[in-house]
């Protein structure tokens, strides 16, 4: 489904600031696999997301989606296959447009956009049904400007917009990190529901270890641009934060010094 081979990315090459953001990453996600990615700041998680989404081109290496080599495709073309939710709740929606208009734009993600009306009666009904599943009452506010919604509501809408067209790959980039705990919990729950409902192949970056353990059926840990731990199945279910920290220490021979990661 998603196939990354020998991906390397270096920033500021041949300068004192040189940083190997990704080093020979090999990763394959099967259809329906839900992978959570953890690691401290600068481990390469966001770079990995950007390489998959196409907003960053790898120095070397190949990205394949559905056995199609998408490495040379620009971001907007790759978005045909990819749904994405950003960390910033403001990033995933257009604030001065209405809820139904935002959904109509998401609806057109994997189709060719034409000179025909974006929000038709039929589609409005469809959008209402989808909004219903969020249980936030947004289905009664189809004509409200998205800028009027709260951060949690906007993020829930972004999640819906990224998923209801059933993308081949779903990318979640710390999408609950900017929300308060109760909203974050709601979005986490919605994420689990929607991924299960559409059986989506998902890559989720998080700083919250508990969230990484609760969600998904596979977990990878990154450090200094490499994947240092990759567990799935029963082994993942038995994981705890304690074990993860110990594991990190065993592999790296040092403490995982990151407040957010430890506290989370």
């Amino acid at each position, binding site marked *: 489904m998603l196939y990354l081979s020998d991906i390397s990315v270096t920033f500021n090459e041949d300068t004192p600031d040189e940083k190997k953001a990704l080093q020979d990453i090999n990763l394959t996600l099967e259809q329906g696999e839900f992978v959570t990615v953890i690691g401290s700041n600068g481990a390469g998680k966001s770079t990995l997301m950007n390489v998959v989404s196409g907003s960053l081109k790898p120095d070397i290496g190949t990205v394949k989606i559905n056995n199609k080599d998408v490495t040379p495709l620009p*971001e907007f073309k790759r978005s045909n296959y990819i749904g994405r939710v950003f960390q910033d709740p403001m990033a995933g929606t257009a604030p001065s447009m209405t809820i139904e208009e935002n959904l109509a734009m998401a609806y057109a993600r994997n189709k060719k956009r034409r000179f025909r009306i974006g929000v038709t009666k039929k589609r409005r009904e469809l959008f209402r049904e989808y909004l219903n599943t969020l249980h936030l009452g947004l289905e009664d506010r189809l004509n409200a400007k998205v800028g009027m919604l709260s951060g949690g509501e906007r993020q829930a809408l972004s999640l819906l917009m990224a998923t209801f067209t059933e993308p081949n790959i779903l990318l979640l980039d710390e999408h609950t990190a900017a929300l308060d705990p109760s909203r974050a919990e709601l979005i986490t729950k919605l994420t689990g529901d929607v991924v299960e409902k559409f059986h989506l192949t998902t890559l989720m970056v998080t700083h919250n270890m508990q969230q990484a353990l609760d969600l998904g059926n596979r977990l990878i840990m990154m450090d200094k641009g490499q994947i240092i731990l990759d567990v799935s199945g029963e082994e993942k279910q038995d994981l705890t934060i304690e074990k993860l920290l110990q594991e990190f220490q065993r592999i790296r021979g040092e403490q995982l010094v990151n407040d957010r990661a430890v506290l989370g």
Partner: protein
Amino acid sequence: MFFSMFGAVESGIIFAIMALGVYLSFRVLDFPDLTVDGSFVTGAAVAAMCIVNGVSPIIATVLAAVAGFVAGNITGILNTKGKINPLLSGILMMTALYSINLRIMGGSPNIPLLNEPTVFNFLETAWEKTGIDQFLNGLLTSIGVEVVPGTWIVIFVMIIITVIVKLITDYYLKTEIGLALRATGDNEKMIRSLSANTDTLKIVGLGFSNGLVALSGALIAQNDGFVDLKSGIGMIVIGLASVIIGEALFGKKTIVRTTLAVILGAIVYRMVVTAALKVDFLETGDMKLISAILVVAALVTPKVIATVREQKRRQRKRIDLNNKAKGA
């Protein structure tokens, strides 16, 4: 007074099409596009040269709009493919167009159109048969207006063209492509993640915008009876004034309402300028200054009003609280 206001409304409706173009770039695409100063004259020049050389005025007007479309495309390409800052792309294109316009006009900075056919006198014979002029002027005379307009045809033709342009714009902004265009100005990162090619959208969007500006230029030239190479100077400010005044006075809740507000804003702007020029110590040369002051006023006033309102609201709350405390 009536006569000069009649002229103001007449040219206001023609300039409204230019204002709609500015609305598309400035508001919808969030792209302050200075190409307008050049593309307005491009439209006028192309139409004039075509008409002088015997092309039908309607085809000439369409060709003018196409020329403006291309000019906007080039600004868009400079910005997206050349990665040049939006303001600078517009300034560069505007500067280049000055020379290009002179070339189109065959090296002469002024082309008269006085005895040439135009889209307005094209319909004149048919118009005279309807007798609307006599009827409306009769009405005016009966209510005591002494100097009546020569013909109403320009206003009627322009209302029809402007309404058509408005309806097309409204429809366009609601299509799938139109939604993506609006999102490009609203949240570019987001619409790119929804598989829209924002570069193409900007290039096409600026094309539409400048196409309307050039269309307006072509119609103004035919109404005025001449093209002047320098007539585009300050056009962007007039466009901005119309958009901002219109939005402030008539609201911008929906697209349909905003485009109407922009058209009315263009007419109000013309009327205000005409009224201002009636003041004794102001001269025609002060028009640009008046435009600039109008834009500043339209930008600042709504914010001042909102601040004062908010202060009053808080004051009222505090007084209420004090009164309650006293009561208790």
